[in-house]
């Protein structure tokens, strides 16, 4: 399953938010979309599952233009872990994860035994077996995040989109969430696209990085190619450098200082 973004433009009213973005997504990879706040990251992500429709250019899903597909068709292939996961209602964890099967079910009628199996497996995989009957509105942010990831897994997607997955989480939970997704991607060949402004997290987990700046792609490639001091200075206005953490065998980013003179 391939995803390809060609010359994507998006504007809110007169304001261009994305101004000709080209971005191929390789099957099975974890791709990070980096950029400062307001650069259009989330808008780009929302265009990848038809939550927004492009003002120009196109998004090709498996060679088919997404604008010709229904939302339901897209949801069968692309799942999302959104930025906020507050749930005010007393849906149980099981109810919530089972919603992941919605794109595959008719209006009426209950879940098939296949649906049940997939939902149970998703709950198992995310370590939520003991939480089945817990109410969503009594859970912490990190626990809800895991439930949403389980729901996305139950959607049996080929591509998983994550919008700022670490934003509202404690540090240890940030690692838990991304370790889970990383393992999943390696084990099942799931393609993952992560939008974030967290340089260190993206450097650590992503195979390739797209850096957005001024509504365009500023740099694209491996962490070494993209996270150069120059790029981080231009795009994020920080003095930072990439280094290879021998202990874990992955990249990280050291932030020295801001370049703003106050």
């Amino acid at each position, binding site marked *: 399953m391939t995803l390809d973004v060609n010359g994507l433009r998006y504007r809110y009213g007169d304001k261009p938010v994305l101004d000709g973005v080209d971005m191929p997504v390789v099957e099975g990879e974890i791709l990070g979309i980096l950029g400062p706040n307001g650069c259009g990251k989330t808008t780009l992500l929302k265009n990848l599952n038809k939550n927004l429709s492009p003002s120009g250019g196109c998004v090709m899903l498996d060679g088919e233009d997404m604008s010709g597909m229904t939302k339901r068709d897209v949801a069968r292939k692309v799942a999302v872990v959104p930025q906020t996961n507050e749930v005010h*209602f007393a849906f149980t964890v099981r109810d919530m994860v089972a919603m992941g099967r919605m*794109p595959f079910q008719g209006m009426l009628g209950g879940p098939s035994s296949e649906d049940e199996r997939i939902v149970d497996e998703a709950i198992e995989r995310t370590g939520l077996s003991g939480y089945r009957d817990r109410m969503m509105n009594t859970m912490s942010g990190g626990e809800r995040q895991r439930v949403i990831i389980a729901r996305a897994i139950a959607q049996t997607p080929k591509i998983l989109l994550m919008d700022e997955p670490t934003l509202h989480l404690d540090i240890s939970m940030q690692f838990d969430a991304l370790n889970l997704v990383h393992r999943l991607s390696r084990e099942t060949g799931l393609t993952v696209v992560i939008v974030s402004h967290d340089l260190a997290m993206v450097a650590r987990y992503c195979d390739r990085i797209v850096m957005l700046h001024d509504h365009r792609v500023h740099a694209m490639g491996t962490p070494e190619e993209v996270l150069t001091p120059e790029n981080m200075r231009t795009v994020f206005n920080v003095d930072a450098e990439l280094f290879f953490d021998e202990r874990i065998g992955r990249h990280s980013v050291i932030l020295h200082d801001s370049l703003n003179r106050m």
Partner: protein
Amino acid sequence: MMPRRTVTFVTLSALVVFTVVCAFLDLSWVSAGTSYTFQEVWEALIGEGTWASNIIVRENNAPRVVAGLFVGAGLAVTGAAMQAVFRNPLASPYILGLSSGASLGAALGMLFTIPLVPAIVATPFLAFITCFATMVLVYSMSRVGGSVRTETLILSGVAVSSLLSALVSFLTFIAGDKLEGIVFWSMGNLGNASWGEIAFMAPIVTVCAVLLLTQAKPLNAMMIGDAHAMDLGVDVRRTRLFVLILSTVIVAAAVSFVGVIGFIGLVIPHMLRILLGPDNRHIMPLSMVAGGCFVLICDYMAHIIAPYFGILPIGVATALIGAPVFIYLLIRRRREVGWN
């Protein structure tokens, strides 16, 4: 803790039994202070009653009971759907001005005769038009930058509702000899319902309510958030529009035949959510049964106090019972039910 499915099943069974009892109570009413026994009601229903009981049970009481069941079921399921679609506990046909909208159309229909169109067709038709126009008006008034703000929605609903009520009052004021009809109608009156009107209203309410039930799953996703629903493949705009149109048709059909009956759409779904949790696949069908049941209880109450005040209009009875429940819910701010 019992699984929710079991709770739902138990509640449903209890409601059905209770509804049947209420229906019999309501059917048994003869006049202030006298009523038939259940056995006499049953005999009348199967056609073996006395001459008098046949007429009273089957021709006087039965249309009222059947109309009450359909109106209650329709209004309650509409309330449940609207609360889910707006993610707002206060959303109901009543608060959003739909009832007053339909009232205006119905009052116009009763007051002015349209050439060649019989009043039984014109009144519900006009009620539907004004009801729908009200929905469009309230909804577009509360759209700010593409999203509908809850507070604005309620405020526009209240504002538009007051304006429309004032217009209805004005029409009542100039109605002359038709005044009594409009006043009585605006308080809700199941007694007016004839089999002919039921044959018109019941299929409309049934079809729309069943179509609403098919939206239970997307509505669950929309209760969590529009973005979540879209991520799960729900066409949020289309679902919202579909639900609003169905709600409008149900409200228009109900209100144009039996008048304004408030608080059912508001109170019934809330009470069920406290019992059964938020899942619309359970809440919506049970709302229908509970709504019908609630109307029958209110109608029976309205009749048993007849020796003191005469038979109360049904809208007054539902408000007398429903409003305190609503106030209780507002004060309690049921966080555990989910509304923040």
